[in-house]
């Protein structure tokens, strides 16, 4: 079997993205979602129900009394918190496996995923970009999912990738493509396809290093994910062996009129939001 064929098998073997979460996302996409309908979707999953109640009763919210009904918790948390909790919960299980190949620490990929999703939200709000929040958060959170699969295969080729990156001429993704014949973004797109995500998310994941190659209708989403990835990597959030060897999309900064001062403001807003998100998601910020 060729390496690519082996990887296709590995993609097929990946656990499915939780149905309950996907259905809840669809329900939450409607701004006038019905609480009862949402509760019906969520209650079949005991672990999710327990997590929602746990978050609602955590010190973070400091409620005066204990919330014990799922319905009450759903109302209290609201769409944004619920979305973050559900997606982060599902994604953390996928990312937090020990990764011998790509991550220096087992949780690096996961921290980077979360940082990119938070950066995307901050960027969207900062420039008031009209784009579906759900889609953006999901695409940003999962953009590097291809690394989860790839890291099991790169062990023996890894030295070659590293040498190319060290020469300073290639980014990590370019070196992957040169050495392996494909890169983690492409594999990520295949995983999103297997999970039956919408075309927009598949595209944004597959082209997060080359947003200019994405179909025009998904261009804004792809660009936002690409830029959020750049900024999260720049700040140093959860990069693994690839360090900061990632090509910057300076033109996207110009397009959004982000110069030095605006970038500093973004980093500041990001850091404050990231601290909150880590607390809610129970992730170690450092």
């Amino acid at each position, binding site marked *: 079997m060729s390496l690519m064929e082996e990887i296709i098998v590995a993609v097929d073997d990946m656990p499915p993205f939780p149905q309950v979460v996907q259905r809840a996302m669809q329900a939450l996409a409607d701004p006038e979602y019905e609480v009862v309908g949402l509760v019906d979707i969520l209650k079949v999953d005991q672990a999710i129900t327990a997590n929602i109640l746990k978050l609602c009763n955590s010190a973070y919210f400091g409620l005066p009394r204990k919330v014990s009904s799922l319905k009450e918790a759903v109302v209290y948390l609201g769409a944004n918190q619920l979305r973050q909790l559900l997606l982060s919960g599902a994604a953390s299980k996928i990312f937090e496996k020990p990764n011998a190949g790509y991550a*220096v620490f087992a949780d690096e990929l996961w921290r980077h995923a979360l940082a990119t999703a938070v950066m995307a939200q901050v960027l969207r709000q900062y420039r008031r970009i009209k784009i579906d929040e759900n889609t953006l958060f999901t695409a940003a959170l999962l953009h590097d999912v291809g690394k989860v699969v790839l890291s099991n295969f790169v062990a023996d080729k890894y030295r070659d990738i*590293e040498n190319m*990156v*060290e020469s*300073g001429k290639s*980014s990590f993704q370019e070196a992957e493509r040169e050495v392996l014949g494909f890169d983690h973004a492409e594999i990520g797109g295949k995983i999103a396809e297997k999970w039956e995500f919408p075309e927009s998310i598949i595209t944004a994941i597959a082209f997060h290093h080359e947003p200019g190659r994405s179909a025009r209708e998904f261009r804004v989403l792809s660009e936002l994910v690409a830029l959020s990835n*750049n*900024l999260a*990597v*720049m*700040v*140093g*959030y*959860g*990069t*693994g*062996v*690839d*360090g*900061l*060897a*990632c*090509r*910057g999309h*300076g033109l996207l*900064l*110009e397009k959004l009129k982000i110069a*030095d*001062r605006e*970038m*500093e*403001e973004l*980093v*500041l807003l990001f*850091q*404050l939001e990231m601290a909150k998100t880590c607390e809610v998601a129970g992730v170690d*910020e*450092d």
Partner: protein
Amino acid sequence: MSLVTVGIADLKVSKDPEDTLVTYSLGSCIGLAVYDPVVKVGGLLHYMLPDSSINKEKATTHPAMFANKGIPLLFKQCYSMGADKKRLIIKVAGASQIMDNAGAFNIGKRNYAILRKIFWKNNVQIAGEDIGGNSNRTMYLEIGDGKINLKISKKGIIEL
């Protein structure tokens, strides 16, 4: 030995010889370590941004986020534990950048430039540094002897 984590936009000082201060994930941020070998007091700062003028309120609530607030605070806290400016050994790491020919993602460079400026004004010398490039760094300061180790992506561990 106990490992004391200095978070992002955070600073810690110590005079417990058993402590090792550590800060992770230095990208465009800067890790600044100061150490007085006589009283064995040391401190570590992990700042993200050059200047707090972008947000006056956060300058007060999150001083360690900014070079212009965090650096003076780090020195002051070390002085209050008995450190002396003349004896302080100062080492710096970070200020990396992503691959970008136009230099638009240059917060790292600006983080480093302001540090040089503050040090120059205050007549402070840097004893060692590992700055720039595409690496991601973790910085350790051992309070017992002032040893500083850097864990660098692609390179492993080096002593600064």
